């Protein structure tokens, strides 16, 4: 585990991932912290959802050109689509969500597989995650 807090869930290996990770004091991991998490572990990670060229990413930062660009470390997000979030902005072939998003899923390399869409939602959000209102 590179960062954050590792938790023994009491599950056997056959039950799936045996660890989960959040940041200090339960805060979501940053994208760089999630990238350093043990492969297969469950993580809660916050970042900015942006899709460019058909690939859905959770980015550490949002570079403020227009349309914006993914900045810093990125996770490729699978298991959800951009349409699972709201409201979505689109310009050219880039789509993004304004508010920072917190996702839960399993991490494998640079891929975050989101299995559970029912983690709650923020203001007007769809089901893809919860708005991190600190970023608003």
């Amino acid at each position, binding site marked *: 585990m590179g960062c954050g807090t590792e938790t023994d869930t009491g599950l056997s290996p056959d039950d799936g991932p045996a660890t989960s990770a959040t940041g200090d004091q339960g805060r*979501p991991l*940053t*994208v760089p912290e999630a990238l350093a998490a043990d492969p297969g572990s469950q993580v809660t990670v*916050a*970042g*900015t959802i942006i899709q*460019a*060229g058909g*690939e859905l*990413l959770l980015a*550490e*930062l*949002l*570079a*403020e*050109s*227009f*349309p*914006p*660009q*993914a*900045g*810093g470390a*990125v996770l490729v997000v699978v298991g959800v689509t951009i349409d699972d979030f709201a409201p979505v902005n689109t*310009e*050219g*072939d880039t789509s*993004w*969500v*304004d*508010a*920072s998003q917190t996702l839960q899923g399993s991490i494998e390399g640079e891929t975050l597989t989101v299995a559970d869409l029912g983690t709650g939602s923020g203001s007007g959000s769809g089901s893809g995650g919860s708005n991190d209102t*600190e*970023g*608003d």
Partner: protein
Amino acid sequence: MTIIKTRADESVSNGDLISEEVEETDVSHGSDDRIERSAGNGRERILDESGPGDGALTGVGGGSGPRAALEASIVSSLDVDVGLRTAAEASFDIAPAITPESVIDDDGRRQIANTYAYPWRVHCSLRIIARDGSAWLGTAFFISPRVLATAGHNVFINGRDPDRRGWVRNIEVIPGRDGNELPFGSALSTRFYSVRGWADDANTEFDYGAIVLDPSEALGNSTGWIGFGAYSDATLRSVWANLSGYPSDRGRGREQWYMARRVDSVSARKVFYDIDTFGGQSGSAVYRIKDGSRYAIGIHAYGVGARPLNSATRINRPAFDNLSAWKQAHQ
């Protein structure tokens, strides 16, 4: 904090590389810090702010043009132009229901109506054509008659798309744009600079670059420019940061919007603040006003991430040296 120049700080360009470094041309020792504010009396007025002002490490003065080598010492008499409309007179178009990703709490930006006046005319709307032909918006600011500082991701796109990644194809530079009014026309550039830390490594701590205009289109001679400086952590933590740029959520990148706040915090290569920004404002000058002169302390690049602050690439000593070298190479 001493920043050692590394390979990531090395300059790269889509044209000829330059290697010479330029000795600083001015050393400023601050005794106070100032914020740009509007007075509502038809003139721009500079108000003093208290602050320890422990002194700049380095600083290069700006100029309001059209002179080519204007130094900071005479700028103060030029940037108080009689008859200027001020930000206080500008229109306000704040939509309270909108809480975009980088607008922190209520939107505090104000539209600049007199973009033809100094200092607003040094800030430029950018229309960027990427390598794959896609169109982008950004902001840049003059640091000399022919050279504009901007975000690295405005000149070199680091996406995952191989057709897009690389130096952009061209950038149309539009100084002081106000809607459909282009008071200084525009210039098309195909000559750019950044550093290896950005172009090779996509490291957000090195996200800055420059745009070079052709000698025949040295629009900075008409607009003037602002200075830039590398300051200590203590100084940066005590100053007001001014930011003016072209956000896409206000006038689709064709209107200039301004806001100022105290610097929240700094790291070795970034400056953090709660100035509201939006896509299109990347490349905006984040500047202080000292003794009536404007000095960029950073180049705006990022909206809020895990922490609820927007950020600029800090003009530290290596960045200062690169900006100075780029400016010197294209006089």
